[in-house]
């Protein structure tokens, strides 16, 4: 009996260790930038934290508001900002990926309908271990640089 309970405790611990990326990743400050009139695409931004022991990759993002969803980044080549798709966004163990304008972001391409300020767009992040997580991103009017900028200081 004693052994059994020890086994149970052991299993509980290992469940923690072997939890999928969806359980060890937390997302903060998620928002979608309200697209200006006539802009067919916009970005979703957030801070993705990996609290787990293993490095995690976001391989895919999906949302229902646009026809296409892609993972993107920007390259600054001599002052020319070039937006390019990336195959994955990696978040090292005990680290975070900051998705912000002019940098890594989730691109919502070909919006099905104009968005309104305050709308909520559910975005599904799919990880490299097969797990996935849905986060709610609020549509925000582009004015001052929003919250994720605060995280710049502890980005490495």
């Amino acid at each position: 009996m004693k052994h059994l309970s020890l086994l149970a405790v052991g299993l509980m611990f290992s469940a923690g260790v072997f939890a999928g990326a969806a359980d060890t990743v937390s997302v903060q400050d998620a928002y979608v930038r309200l697209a200006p009139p006539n802009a067919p695409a916009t970005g979703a931004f957030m801070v993705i934290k990996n609290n787990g022991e293993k490095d995690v990759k976001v391989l895919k993002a999906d949302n229902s508001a646009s026809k296409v969803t892609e993972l993107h980044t920007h390259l600054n080549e001599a002052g020319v900002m070039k937006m390019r798709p990336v195959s994955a966004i990696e978040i090292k163990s005990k680290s975070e990926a900051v998705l912000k304008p002019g940098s890594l972001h989730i691109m919502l391409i070909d919006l099905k309908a104009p968005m309104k300020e305050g709308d909520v767009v559910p975005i599904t992040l799919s990880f490299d271990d097969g797990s996935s997580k849905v986060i709610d991103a609020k549509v925000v009017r582009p004015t001052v640089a929003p919250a994720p900028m605060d995280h710049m200081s502890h980005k490495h």
Partner: protein
Amino acid sequence: MSERILLGIAGLLAALVLGLALFWHPELPDRQLPKAATVAGGDFTLESASGPVSLQDFRGKLVLLYFGYTYCPDICPTSLSATSEGLRQLAPDELARVAMLFVSVDPERDTPGRLKEYAEFFHPQIIGATGTSQNLAEIAKRYGVFYARQKVETAGGGYVVDHTSDTYVVGTDGALLGKIAHATPPDQVVVAIRKYLNQKP
């Protein structure tokens, strides 16, 4: 004994070299756009929703010039929202001395009407304008603006336009004064605008 000291010194040196290799990241020098002939600036005339708009129309005002396009998914909105937030922080008498032009380098998709809606979303004072490809290419050359189409299947219309993302500052006399770098936060945009406003031509 002396051998130990030597070994100690050697060890310290090795650690120092290793430390330097690990932690020393030399600052890369700023890559400047080729100066000389390319950034002469100068007058031009483009088409806006309310007719032709010329740089000469704004003599006596500080003119902010931004080159982009409405299909731009991230860079233009980032620049324009920072700049317009900066404009909002100006005192009314300061704002009255500033004009801003959003010049589309994608005339194929950006009609003047479309540009007007887009620009005014950021700030009512921003004027959207564009021209013929030849006209735009000639202006771009004089201002040191770079833009190039890139085929991207998923983008609306099948292409994106890579472009320089600094905001050009033209003085009250029409002379090109300088640039405000992309992603400059609004409070620093204000500092830059004030600096140029108080600069004697």
